[in-house]
């Protein structure tokens, strides 16, 4: 009869299995959460694309929305909003966006700043015709 600690309830095979599965789970963390590097920044307002730029070039951009001018800074492969005419400044508080899929949004000024990765750029070049 097995008594004592709960670890003794695992057969040696169980122990090996749990260790192997734990390693697989950790690997899945590394594989899936390793995020790509953003290659370009896209600013849209509603359906219109206002601005597209490469993330590798440092610059400062002024964008006009319905409320006024929002200032965007691209530096070190990341984007942040420096100033905005909106009342609550949530967009400035969102900090920096640098990975593909990251988003900065200023809802009052109708601006959405999106980061795209190399795969999005390649996908766009790969098709010459798209029908939905």
């Amino acid at each position, binding site marked *: 009869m097995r008594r004592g600690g709960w670890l003794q*309830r695992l057969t040696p095979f*169980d122990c090996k*299995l749990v260790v192997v599965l734990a390693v697989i789970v950790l690997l899945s963390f590394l594989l899936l959460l390793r995020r790509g590097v953003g290659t370009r920044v896209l600013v849209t307002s509603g359906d219109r694309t206002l601005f597209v730029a490469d993330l590798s070039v440092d610059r400062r951009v002024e964008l006009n929305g319905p409320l006024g001018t929002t200032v965007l800074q691209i530096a070190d492969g990341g984007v942040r909003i420096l100033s905005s005419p909106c009342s609550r400044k949530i967009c400035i508080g969102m900090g920096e966006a640098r990975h593909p899929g990251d988003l900065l949004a200023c809802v009052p000024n109708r601006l959405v700043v999106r980061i795209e990765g190399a795969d999005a750029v390649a996908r766009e070049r790969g098709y010459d015709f798209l029908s939905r």
Partner: protein
Amino acid sequence: MTSSAVDPAALELELVRRRVFLALFIALAVALHTFEVLLPNPLPWFRIGLANILALTALFLYGQRALWIVSLTRILVGSLLLGNLFSPAFLLSLSGGLSATLLMSVAYRFCRPRIGPVGVSVLGALGHAGGQLLIAWLLIVRHPSIWMMLPFFLLFSLISGMVNGLAADYLLDALFKHPAFARLRSMGEKEAI
């Protein structure tokens, strides 16, 4: 099998007792399945899978057929009680349950003398998470970012699988002492119902 020393009446009693136990396992699994929905959840899809404790116990006491009976009946009757039969939540539950049961019975079939309840349970829990996410991706959210949830799912189910496996092991220890499973204990080998 039946040696001349075994009294046929005693054998009959034992078989009836074992059938009653299997019915109790199914009933308890349905109850736990329903109870778990009442527990507060940090995230919608994270479930401990307490009902699997009973499926595991049935597997180690009766064999693979009982595992399938307990799992499938639990999902069908549990969903009927919760009122979500054939809804998306039911489909997720069914796909998770099917892949978990498949993995568990394959592991039991091929690694039996060496694998214990904890090993089978962990495999089942991971299979549950994987199968559920696969169906969620195919039927509900057609977006690759759903796979970002997979590592968290797997980590959670690894832990809950170990907890469930240990619970099943304690339960098995207690049940082996019951007269219904006396012959199982003396034979040291499982026999289908």
